[in-house]
């Protein structure tokens, strides 16, 4: 069985990187100009090419070939990256290469070699191992549940709120529950078996630990008999839909469950006229595409085969190029809300600039995360929006913190809160 996180499976991809920087620049068709022309947060923050995807690939290759060894700078290079996947979609616009898998696998190698992850990641992993949540919180995970939220004991759909909405951004979980109630959709939760999806463990490269979490969570879900998992968090969404099957070397289609984000549920109903908004919201807002369900939202497609002359793959591989991510659904919803003036930022959809919080950056490099969030908020300002709406609790949190720290007077919302306020 192929190990999708073994860097030796990606030496071709590293070697055939051609330095075109499709991974760094916004798609030239959408290029907005000099300002906001770069979509890789890491290379926008640290300008040396070592902090760009193609630089990382060359550095990783140098490590594999013994030309360099692990150093503190090497670890910074590998971990000062949100794993936001902007590079991956950009590269695959023209080429059949896998830069994101390279970046992830280099982290896995660092952990296997006893050099990674960063201390802050180890702490988060320890919290998850000991308390079942990334914060190490001792409280029950179900603290978000209000009396007026109807949760079934048995249903075909499980709501998986994730750590952030369970402990920090509880309003998102509460809104999700109420929206599902209003839509008349029965749902259950994993009850006292609900724990972290393992996203921070997987992205920090701790593959064995992440696999164990995956197996446990999949078994828990199966035991409920439910076939659909709904999330309100882009990271959980991606973990169940992409990371679990990728770690277990399986097609998502063979995992035996469906994963949907709340916006997919609501947009379908909205487009069918079965969900309407009765209250207006008078704001000018920009929608921020969360990386993990937008350009990285396509389900994992397993491939195993050989590479022959001219680099031809047998059998043919189906690439996840970021084309079919969740882009339009949130826009469809927001466009239906009276008074909400939805504007696009220069970097949008597959070219969106990450909020800064992903890939373990918020834990290990909080200054960098805040810088990236601030950079994104200047983009919100550039289109004269007063608010930014995302579909991931981590984006909301880091945006609000950055706005406050810089007196930017921009409010960040989660889309669930907007839906709730207007229904």
């Amino acid at each position, binding site marked *: 069985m192929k190990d999708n996180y073994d860097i030796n499976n990606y030496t071709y991809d590293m070697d055939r990187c051609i330095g075109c920087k499709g991974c760094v*620049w916004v798609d030239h068709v*959408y290029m907005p100009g000099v300002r906001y022309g770069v979509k890789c947060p890491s290379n926008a923050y640290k300008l040396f090419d070592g902090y760009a995807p193609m630089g990382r690939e060359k550095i990783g290759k140098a490590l594999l070939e013994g*030309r360099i060894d692990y150093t503190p700078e090497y670890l910074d290079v590998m971990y000062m990256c949100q794993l936001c996947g902007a590079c991956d979609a950009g590269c695959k616009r023209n080429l059949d290469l896998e830069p994101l898998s390279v970046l992830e696998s280099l982290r896995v190698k660092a952990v296997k070699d006893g050099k990674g992850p960063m201390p802050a990641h180890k702490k988060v992993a320890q919290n998850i191992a000991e308390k079942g949540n990334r914060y190490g919180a001792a409280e029950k995970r179900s603290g978000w549940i209000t009396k007026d939220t109807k949760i079934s004991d048995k249903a075909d759909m499980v709501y998986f709120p994730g750590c952030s909405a369970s402990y920090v951004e509880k309003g998102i979980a509460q809104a999700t529950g109420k929206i599902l109630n209003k839509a008349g959709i029965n749902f259950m939760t994993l009850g006292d078996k609900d724990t972290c999806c393992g996203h921070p463990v997987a992205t920090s490269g701790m593959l064995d630990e992440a696999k164990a979490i995956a197996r446990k969570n999949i078994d828990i879900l199966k035991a409920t008999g439910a076939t659909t998992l709904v999330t309100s968090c882009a990271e959980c969404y991606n973990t169940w839909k992409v990371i679990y099957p990728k770690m277990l070397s399986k097609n998502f289609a063979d995992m035996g469950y469906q994963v949907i984000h709340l916006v997919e549920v609501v947009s379908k109903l909205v487009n069918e006229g079965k969900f309407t908004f009765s209250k207006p919201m008078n704001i000018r807002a920009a929608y921020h595409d969360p990386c993990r369900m937008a350009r990285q939202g396509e389900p994992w497609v397993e491939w195993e085969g050989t590479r022959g002359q001219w680099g031809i793959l047998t059998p*043919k*591989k189906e690439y996840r190029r970021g*084309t079919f991510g969740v882009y339009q659904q949130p826009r469809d919803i927001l466009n239906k809300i009276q008074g909400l003036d939805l504007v696009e930022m220069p970097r949008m959809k597959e070219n969106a600039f990450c909020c800064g919080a992903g890939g373990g950056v918020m834990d290990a490099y909080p200054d960098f995360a805040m810088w990236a969030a601030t950079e994104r908020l200047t983009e919100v300002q550039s289109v004269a929006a007063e608010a930014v709406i995302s579909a991931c609790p981590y984006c909301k949190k880091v945006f609000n913190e950055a706005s406050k720290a810089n007196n930017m007077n921009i409010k960040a919302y989660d889309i669930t809160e907007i839906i709730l306020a207007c229904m």
Partner: protein
Amino acid sequence: MGIPQEAYKAMEDIVGSQYITDDQVIAQAYVGRLGHGKDTGIDLEMNVPPAVIVLPRTTKEVQGILKIAHRYKINYVPASSFWISHCAPKRPNSIVLDLKRMNDLEIDEENMCAICGPGVIFSQLQEEAIKRGMYTTTPGGGSQVSVVANHINWGLSPLNYRNGVPGRRVLGGEWVLPDGELLRIGSMSTSDDPFWGEGPGPDLRGLLRGWIGWFGAMGVVTKLAVKLLPFHDEGLKPVGISPHTTLQFPEKKRIRWYNFVMPTRESLVECMYDIGKAEIAAALTKVPQQWRYIAKAGCREDFWEGWNTNEARKSINNIHICRVMLVGYASEEQLEYEERVLMDIMDSYGAKLGRTRQSDNSWIKNADSATMWMMTGAYTSVQVTVDTVDCGVKGGEGLAREKPAFTPPLMDDYGEPGWFQVSEIGHMGYIEFLQYWDPNPNQENLYKKDEWNYIKVPTLDAEWGMFNAFNMYASPMNLTGKAYGPECRKWFEKVKAEFDPDKISNDPIPWDVDEYVDKVDWVNKEDYINRDWSKG
């Protein structure tokens, strides 16, 4: 290893510690293996990591760095967007000047020009220009290349049919000479207002580049004023999600592509002359067959399914596609007029108009040169001849006859005689001969692709009397073509000796190939390198 500590410290004082590093992990990101020349012998065997990478912000900072390099005799490599392996150091202990922070862009709408720092790339300039009803020539090399680096070195694209070759579009600039002295050229020699292009006295723009430039071997250009040309004012609308993104043409008839299938290669050449004589059109190019198959493919395997067919093999001699772009610069009526003229010309050759998408994702703002690697994982062009188009076609057909001896390791392109187009309203022809190979080091006879690139093609050019501009930087300097002969090399040597006697500006460019072939054992040096081509 490394450069003197004092030199490092002095540069650090200039740019600040955040913008300089000698970290050898970061240095690995700058070892080459990118852009044009990737996977050639030079890329694999000569490129070394730099000792220091420095990111200057201003002309003054560049001057300071070059003065230090000059004082300590440290080799340096200027690099703007790294789309050619000449940006990688070939000497140990070199400094790379990564110029990406120098991304100031000023548009002078009234005088139709832009002043660019080397960190500005074409799609950025094109966005600003199109917004204002103007445009520039995005080179085929890609939207991601530096406006400055491309204008001073190369600069080819079908858009040059109307806009002229890039040397003519440089109005002025700031040029830090190899020793750090600042030279202002063109109309920027007297003021900051470059609208016209001429300065008093002899014009030193010709020293910066003739047909082709110095590839970093003559200091650093820190600012360039380039012409913008009038476009239509309806804009282009970006649509789609990656990888299917494109610029949709406006509904008003202000810009149109036309793909004609010509009955013969001769008629393809002849119609180009006629279109030029009629002084219509904005771009005019042949479409090589493998590009059509790339455009249809969703992935490499799709390409090969299409290419490994008799239909593809036959297409080389049976299908001749002429792609024409018309722009109604002034009005829809202009486009309608040009369309009538174009149709008359094409009818007279019995051309058939094929289905053509009215959008652009390959020449105006986006240019996907990366897709050249899609077929085999390695690519380079060996010949860029600028002459008449029939001369180019003759050369291309000749090379196509010789190429089978080098195939494999080169990919079999069934005798495709290259990509040709006309520039400057038909006054200039252009051909580029492209090769693709599998760079897997286990391939047998892989060295033969270098023999073909560095030796065989330039030798044939010299024998056939073709001016191959590539020879200026991609083959031994002696093989510069009969028409221009060894004198061209001497000019390079004299100018270099005058301005950079210590050879610290991107050494050994432009003599890197000479140095490389001298070292390797598969070259017959007597025949190829040491022959006196001036004697024919």
